């Protein structure tokens, strides 16, 4: 029976990766071969498209630096806040806890578009437009999905471990920092990876908060490179810039596939 599954999956998988193959192939073509889309192996292979795409039109190195600063800050914020808040929800009893956790879960359902106008106005009032703060500061207050993920991990750790520390007179902060954190490194890795990916890929929020080109993120820079919708596109450069933009998340995915999949799976078994 398994070979039937392979026979069905093989053509589908080819269809699925074809747009990505097309991207790689086009990024290495010369102008003439752009018009031969079915030729997937370019001849000659123009590596020079890459420096041209990254330095010739827009300052992509600056965009990447900006994206990197934002994403690293978001990772730090989300890892710290998610583990901290999750400790409260998973390990301590206080009145209204279950209700507040339900509230936390339901905030995941609120579209960003609903909040984006007031948020923009507040950040404008704070003079935070064209700074990275609107994109990074909220992560230090905890992202519901990540709090939920870490809480699930915390619940799987036996109560006795924290009880022993408590009897020894350790404070809750100490128990969180020296008992729980070291035991939940995989959870931290899942949060770090998903937070990096979401922050790197984000488009609508940077679009609203950043309008000075030297503050642009990689995705915003790529969008700007397209130019007019009906303009004749420099496809080889556009694809080269696209490939470099997706490279960090693709590398991260291949390096840490296990954590990616773990994160997605845990978020799905809410029941």
């Amino acid at each position, binding site marked *: *029976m398994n070979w039937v*599954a*392979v026979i069905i*999956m093989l053509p*589908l*998988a080819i269809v*699925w*990766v*074809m*747009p*990505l193959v*097309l*991207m790689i192939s086009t990024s290495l073509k010369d102008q003439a071969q752009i*018009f031969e*889309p079915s030729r997937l192996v370019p001849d000659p292979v123009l590596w020079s498209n890459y420096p041209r795409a990254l330095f010739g039109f827009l300052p992509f190195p600056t965009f990447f630096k900006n994206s990197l600063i934002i994403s690293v800050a978001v990772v730090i914020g989300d890892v710290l*806040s998610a583990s901290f*808040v999750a400790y*409260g929800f998973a390990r*301590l*009893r*206080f009145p209204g*806890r279950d209700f*507040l956790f339900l509230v936390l879960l339901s*905030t995941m*359902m*609120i*579209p*960003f*578009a*609903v*909040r984006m*106008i*007031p948020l*923009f106005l507040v950040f404008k009032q704070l003079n935070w437009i064209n700074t990275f703060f609107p994109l990074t500061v*909220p992560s*230090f*207050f905890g992202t*519901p999905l990540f*709090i939920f993920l870490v809480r699930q991990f915390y619940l799987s750790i036996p109560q006795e471990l924290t009880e022993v520390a408590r009897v020894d007179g350790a404070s809750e902060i100490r128990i*969180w920092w020296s008992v729980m954190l070291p035991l939940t490194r995989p959870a931290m890795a899942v949060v770090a990876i998903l937070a990096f990916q979401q922050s790197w*890929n984000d*488009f609508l929020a940077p679009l609203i908060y950043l309008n000075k080109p030297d503050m642009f993120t990689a*995705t*915003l820079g*790529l*969008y700007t490179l*397209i130019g007019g*919708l009906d303009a004749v596109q420099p*496809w080889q450069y556009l694809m080269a810039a*696209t490939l470099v*933009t997706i490279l960090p*998340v*693709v590398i991260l*995915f291949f390096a840490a*596939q296990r954590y990616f999949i773990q994160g*997605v*799976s845990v*978020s*799905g*078994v809410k029941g």
Partner: protein
Amino acid sequence: MTAARREALWGFFFISPWLIGFLLFSIFPILSVFYLGFTKYTVLQPPQWIGLDNYIEMFTADRLYFTSLYNTAYYIALRVPSWIVIGLFLAMLLNRDIRGVTIFRTAFYLPTIIPLVASSVIWLLLLNPQVGLLNSGLRQFGIVAPNWLRDPTWAKPAIVALGVWQLGQTMMIFLAGLQEIPQQLYEAAEIDGANRIQQFFAVTLPMMTPTIYFNTVTGVIAAFQVFGPAFIMTGGGPVNSTLFNVLYLYRQGFQFLRMGYASAMAVVLFLLVLVLTVIIVRTSDKWVRYERI
């Protein structure tokens, strides 16, 4: 201080970052958006109270608003079932003991992890009538394909197709769900003489209803917010055929600087998502099987 009281204080201490963030970045914006919806606000002058005028304009005079709702409903109606059906189908194929199955899993999942801007740019090339791979491929079979993104009939389905390409998350959640179904159930069904198809309807489908339910709720909410592909590939055109709700909201707020009107749109968006979620949750007890065996 009693031990219980101490513990409660610590509890609030630990959740306080989220609690503060929740008030600042969720409660406050939602209350403000309700207020701003009743105002005329161009950012240059302070908001001016105009009562229900924004809502009256939206529902009686603004035909583009209805177009944006229709386009969004169309997108949700096509994308969510596609995600469920194709996502479950692929997950079932991947849930087998095949050598190299992770290569297939990666192939189907990879498009989901890349930024929407990147996938939109790639599809802009893929669907291009002169230099795109799709039309040149169809030409081999003598099919004259349309200029997808510039054709009012085809632009919306094209954007749905891009959405379907990125179904990896749904698929992975299905795969995790399938792996939790106890093997004994299939063995029992086999002893009873059930063939593959009967096993699917008697075991797989009922056991997967909680996962289908989860993917439906999250899928509807995600599909409601479609913005990037239309903003990047079509700009809402041609003739507003891809003007989705959030794109129109963005345009009113940040291009026309009608923050009050856009806030009224945000209020309705919020209520629509809420109502739709409640409807799915309410009907779930009719088809979702909760007991785990």
